[in-house]
Structure formats: C-alpha cells, structure tokens
C-alpha cells in the first residue's frame, strides 16, 4: 500500500466523524431569544399565585400542562397526558401520562406530581383563577400507577380536559411534588423547577424573566435558542423601537401600531381566534327594562345589521382581524359544526343598514331611539374601545342616538355583579376569549345563576332562558360525541337567535418580529400569548416553523 493510500484512510475517518458530529452541532441551541411584553402580570413562577392567561407567557415556557394544545388548528391536544378518557358512568376522567418525562432537576415526572399539582391548585392558599371551579367540579384524585391518574368528578364534567389544558389557561400546570415538599413554597418561588423545554434562570421583578433551554430533547420540541429573556416593556413605542434596533426579537403590539411597525421593517405575526370583542345587552329581562327598545330581539338584531364589520377589520384592526363566528365559537371549538357556523355568521353578521332601519321602523322606532352604551376594554385588548367607538358611529347612521360612557375595566367589572342596577337597560362592550369549549362561556354569560345572566335570573327565567338551561344541561351531560355536537349546535343556534351578546370581530394577538433576529414561525390559534411557541421559534437562517 502506498503512502497516499495510507493517508486517505485517516482523512476519510475524519470526514465521517465530522459528518456525524456537524448536524448535531448545528441543532445545538444558540443565542438569546428576547421577547418584550407590556405586562408580566404578577411576575410569579408559582402557578397557584395567579393563573390568568397573562402569566402563561412565562409560566408556559417552563411548565407543562396536563392537557396541551392541538398546535396546528388550536384547541386541546396532548400535554403531560398523551390521552384521556371518561369513565362509563361519566363520573371520572382517567389521564395516561407520556413516559420518560422529567423535571429540570432530573427527577421523573409521575402521576403523583399530577395529583399533587391539581390538589395544590385547588387548595385554600391557591389564587388560581379556576381554583374555585375546580373545587366545584373535582371530587378527588387517585394515582392508579406512575403513569395513570384518575380524577373523580362531581357529576359529569365534559369540559374537564379543556379546563386543565393550556388551550384555556395554565390551571393544568404540573408542579414538582418532591421538590416543593422538600424546599417549601417560599424557596420554590425563588428557585422554581418545571418540566418544560425551558428552565428557570432568573426573575428580576419589574424587569425580566430569564430561562435557559434544557439540554435534552423535549416532547414540545428542543429550543433553537440557548436562552430566552422575557422583558417587561410597558410602553408600546419603546417595544417597537427595541424590535427595530434588534434589542428584542419579538415585541407584543396592538392593532393601532401595526402600520408603524410594518413601515419600520418589522414583520407582523398574528394569532387567529384569540378573542371576540362583543357587544351585549344587560338586564333586558328585568321588569324595569321591559319597555326598552333593546328588550326586543329584532331591535338588537338591527343594531348588529348596522355594523360594518369589514370596515372595522380594515380600519380599526389594520386588516389583521377576521369576521367572527357566533358568540364564543371559533374554528377550533370542540364538538361544533364549525363550517356551518362560519356560513351562518357570514350571512347574519353582514352589513345591511337599510334592513336595520326597516326593522326599527317595523318595531315602532322609525326615527331611531336612545341607547346608553358603556364602552370598555379588558386588559390586553384595548382595541375594544376603538371597536366600540366605531360601532357607535355606525348606529348613529341608522338614527340611534347613543349616549356613551367610557369605563376603565376595573371600574366596569363590579357593575356586572349583584343586581346590575347601573347596567340594566344598557348595551356595553365585552369580550370572550378563544376557549375550545363553548359551553363554559355560554354558562358564564347566559345561565340564570351566572354573573352576567343575560337571558334572565333564577327568579325571572322566561321561555328563552329556560330553553337555554335545558340545552346547556343536555350538552354538558352528553357523552356521545355526535349527539354532543348536535346539542352544542342547538345551544349556539338558540343563543345566536337571541341577539343578546353579539360578536363584532374575531380579534387576534399581534407581534412585531425583527427578521434579522428571529426566523419564521406561526403562533397557535386561540392562544393570545406565545408561551408554548418559544421553543419552536427558529433563527433567521433556520427552516421556518409551521410555515
């Protein structure tokens, strides 16, 4: 063998070794993904201290949820549990966990952690938003084996998996039993560990939260970035400036600034199906409101026909919103004929001011009437006020004389509770978010014992109200998927025909992206925040995710 031949072998081995190593190296997380938001809410990494969706953006990075997302179309999908099934008697749900999950300290994640987490979330010390409803719906939790947990419920709870899914709120966050029991609550809050693809590094109050990618493959995906920083930057103009200068890769923005951000060279990522700003009518069933024009269904329908939703989408939302479906229904709504309702909405939410005027005349208001309207916006969707203002202008064009009162949300929310004396006979802005389970939100808005009780209360429940109660109860107790869809459709139809809480548009979450810092990605439909998206965000030179 010649020298040349001897020399070739080591070279070939070297090349082969490099070929084996290089792809792996290329996938190693690198760099820092910097994300700027307007609020970090309570800025706590303990899931039981406030589990409003605002927290999910940073809690979701490091915690996994019992039930997760259907990442492609929104709605619920596998999470810590890869499957779940209701018992034959409808009084329990059994969750099968995926094998091989572990905590950031290396301990295995088991059914004991799930039981511990749900019980901790329901405990008296918990401030979780859904703690109260979980206490009502969950009777007990049993560990069957390390990968199986059984949740016994009070009555049939069709919506339990959704309620424990990230698609709704982070109530299903799974926490490390052994670690918390060992170090205690206070230490856990200072040095939390989770099971998500990002591990906690630092929490600087009022400024930022930092995470580091885990160094193993995670079922949610291995992060492309080595570090994740979530910055609190309250001023929107500053967030956009920081995105333009590259100080941040992604900045949360509002529809008002989409044009400016686009002109500044930023790409806009929108999240479909996150919310519907609605307008609704309060206490129309009360005796004192019986002579009010808005006590008549057709008058309420006329007010909907007077709204040019496409104009609102174009001019208020910068073209980055969609026509809504009926109240609290989205493309990912569970057990619903979503295509049917898309067609229904296109027809019934059309702009037809002439028909609106005709209906008003037929109902005895040829010259319009006086309407009191409370304009407000929930935190995170300030554009609701602009939508409300545009609607008022459109109502004026059909002769309705609108008296507008603006409320900050903190002042408006208490008006909904109790006997609603201030709101009775009024219309107002309101909102419903992108939950996959319609009945939950329908119950909150229309049941006689709910806060909003838009169709009547327990003492004044008319035929429409009784019909709703009947349909709602049938839906939540129906276990057969086909029959449940039929009943859900019937409930949605019944409510849609009441014209009591009327969607204006389907709003979205908006993000300005510096494409020199961050590659192409899409968000998960229905989730306003990007908590479960960060691990999939690529570098600019990497393959786009989900594009």
């Amino acid at each position, binding site marked *: 063998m010649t020298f040349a031949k001897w020399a070739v072998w080591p070279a070939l081995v070297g090349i082969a070794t490099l070929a084996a190593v290089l792809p792996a190296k290329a996938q190693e997380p690198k760099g820092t993904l910097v994300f700027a938001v307007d609020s970090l*809410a*309570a*800025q*706590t990494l303990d899931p039981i*201290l*406030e589990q*409003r969706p605002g927290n999910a953006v940073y809690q979701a990075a490091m915690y996994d949820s019992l039930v997760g997302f259907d990442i492609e179309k929104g709605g619920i999908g596998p999470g810590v549990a890869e499957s779940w099934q209701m018992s034959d008697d409808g009084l329990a749900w059994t969750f099968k966990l995926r094998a091989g999950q572990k905590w950031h300290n290396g301990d295995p994640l088991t059914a004991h952690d799930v039981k511990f987490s749900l019980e901790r979330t329901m405990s*008296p010390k918990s*401030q979780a*938003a*859904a703690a*109260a*409803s979980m206490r009502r719906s969950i009777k007990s939790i049993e560990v069957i084996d390390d990968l199986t947990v059984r949740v016994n419920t009070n009555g049939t709870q069709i919506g339990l998996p959704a309620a424990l899914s990230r698609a709704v*709120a982070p109530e299903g966050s799974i926490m490390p039993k052994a670690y918390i029991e060992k170090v205690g609550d206070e230490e856990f809050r200072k040095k939390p560990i989770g099971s998500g693809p990002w591990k906690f590094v630092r929490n*600087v*109050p*009022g*400024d930022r939260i930092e995470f580091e990618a885990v160094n193993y493959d995670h079922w949610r995906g291995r992060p492309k970035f080595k570090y994740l920083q979530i*910055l*609190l*930057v*309250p*001023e929107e*103009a*500053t967030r956009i*400036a*920081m995105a*333009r*200068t590259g*100080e941040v890769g992604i900045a949360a923005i509002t529809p008002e600034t989409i044009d400016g951000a686009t002109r*500044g060279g930023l790409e806009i990522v929108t999240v479909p199906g996150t919310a519907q700003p609605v307008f609704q009518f309060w206490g129309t069933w009360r005796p004192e409101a019986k002579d009010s024009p808005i006590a008549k269904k057709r008058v309420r329908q006329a007010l909907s026909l007077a709204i040019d939703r496409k104009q609102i989408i174009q001019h208020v939302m910068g073209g980055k919103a969609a026509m809504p479906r009926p109240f609290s229904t989205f493309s990912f709504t569970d057990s619903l004929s979503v295509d049917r309702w898309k067609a229904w909405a296109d027809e019934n939410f059309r702009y037809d001011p002439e028909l609106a005027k005709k209906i008003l005349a037929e109902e005895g208001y040829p010259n319009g009437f006086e309407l009191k309207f409370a304009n407000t916006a929930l*935190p995170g969707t300030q554009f609701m006020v602009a939508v409300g203002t545009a609607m008022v202008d459109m109502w004026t064009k059909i002769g309705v004389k609108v008296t507008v009162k603006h409320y900050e*949300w*903190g*002042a408006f*929310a*208490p008006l909904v*509770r109790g006997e609603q004396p201030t709101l009775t006979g009024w219309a107002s802005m309101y909102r419903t978010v992108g939950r996959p389970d319609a009945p*939950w*939100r329908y*119950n*909150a*808005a229309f049941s006689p*014992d*709910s*806060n*909003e009780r838009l169709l009547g209360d327990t003492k004044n429940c008319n035929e429409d109200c009784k019909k709703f109660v009947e349909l709602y109860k049938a839906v939540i107790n129906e276990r057969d998927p086909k029959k449940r869809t039929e009943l859900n459709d019937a409930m949605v139809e019944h409510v849609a025909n009441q014209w009591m809480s009327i969607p204006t548009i389907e709003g979205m979450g908006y993000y300005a992206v510096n494409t020199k810092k961050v590659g192409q990605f899409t968000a998960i439909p229905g989730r306003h925040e990007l908590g479960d998206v960060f691990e999939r965000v690529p570098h600019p030179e990497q393959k786009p995710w989900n594009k």
Partner: protein
Amino acid sequence: MGRFIVRRLLQGLILLFLVAGVVFILGRLTGNPADLMLPEDATAEDRVRLIAQLGLDGPLHTQFLKFIGNALTGDLGTSIRMRQPAVEVFFSRLPNTLAIIPWAILFAMTIGIPLGVAAALNRGNAIDRAAGTVAVLGIAMPSFWLGIILIFVFSVELGWLPSGRMGGPEHYVLPVITLGTFLTAGFMRLTRSSMLDVMESEFVKLARIKGLSERTVIWKHCLRNAMIPLLTLWGVFVGNLITGAIVTETVFAWPGIGRLTYEAVIYRDFPLLQAVIILKSILILGINLLVDILYAFVDPRIRLS
C-alpha cells in the same frame, strides 16, 4: 434648632396619617382587585372567598384601623399581586430610581444654572430670550413625548444608544436627559431671577466699587448668594423626581418605584399602593426636612425665626 426639627417631625407624622387615610379611601373607590382576578364563571361565593383571602373583607374603618395598627409596627401589608411584603417590594425597586435621580439633577444643574446666569447677565437681549425659550420648552414638552422622540432619533435612526432598560452607562443617557429636561427649565428660571435680585444688592455694588473683577463678582459673590433659593428648589425637585418618574420609567422600561406605583394602580394592588405612597411621602418629608435644616444653617434668619 432642636425644637425646629421636632416641630417638623410632628407635622410630618400628621401629614403621613392624612396621606394614609386619603390613599386608603381613594384606592378603594376605584374598584376591588377581586373583580380583576376572578374568571367569568366565578360565583358570588367565590368572590366573597377571594376578598376574604385578600384581607379586603370587613367594614372600611375596621380595615383602616388594622392597617394603621400594622403600619405602626412597620408592616404595610402584602402585595396582592406579588404576594410579597409591600415594603420589601418598594425597597427592591427604590435603588433603581435613586440610581437615575442624581444624574438627572446633575444634568439639569449643569445646563440650567449657567443658562440662568447667562440670561440674567444679558437681561432682555437675544441670549435671555433664547434661554427663556429653552425654559418654556423644557416645561411644556411632555416627558413621554420627549422620551419617545429621543429613542426614535438616538436609538432607532442613529443607533447610538439603547432604547431603554437598565444596564451600563449608555442606558442612562436618554432617561437622564428626559427626566432632567424638565428640571433644567426650573433651575434656569430660578437662577435667573435669583441672580437678578442679588445683582441689585448693595454688597454687589460694594464689590464692584472695591474693584473686584466682574468674573469674581458674578461667579463668586452673586451666584453663591443666588444659590440659597435653589437649595429649596433642589429639595422640591428631588421629591418631584421620586414621585414623578412614572412616565420616564414607563417609557424607558426602567424598573423603579415610579413604574411600581403605576402597576399598583392598574392592578388595584391596595396594600402595595398604600405602601408606595406612604414610603414616598416619608422620603419626601425626609428630604424636605433635610433641606429645611440645611436652609436654616445657611440662612440664620430662618433658624432664628
């Protein structure tokens, strides 16, 4: 002097009590944090339970007396939002605000005092009018607008400075200019008027008659005496900066007590809001007391009266 300090301290305590009462009542008039925390399906019972959990149940006067009782022991409550002692939260953010204030004052004095002197020396002419324009602009320009314009020019367009957040020295430049610009106008106007008063004094005429150079007369004799009213202004300005940095801190994402106040209001975090206002009041009272004492030392007429 001792009586003077004791009197001031007693006045401060009464003022603190009044501040605590006003903040306690006004905060509760704006709504209940439970309404912001509860989900749509929460029942009336859920609300009652949460309100009790937050310690916001019971009659207002009982809550107030309990609050005052705890406050006397140094316990100003626990932040509803952060679940940490409100005093602890306040003092964790205070250094961030204090880190920027001396630089803003230094900036304002460096620009405002020479400008005021120049305006006084050139009373009525172009320099005076130009300085007056600067003063008007400084007072009239809203700090949120100035801050955003500075970010746009120096961060986005020129790329010289970061847009915000705490960090190295370069992070301080734009917030300091934004915060200091308003003060610059104040320092300039007061220096000018004080200088004009002092320049008419008999001792200044005497200094000139003695043949001292104009430079010595102006910078040594006039300015030194004109600085006495500025001392009072300095105390007021520091107080204004402590309480009024909300906008600057918000625009520049600066995690100080200004933004903490804003967050406490937005989230109806009553214990935190009360603590922040009371602790800010204590700081301002302390600074004013210090200024009064210094003033009394500088000007014997105050001390003797």
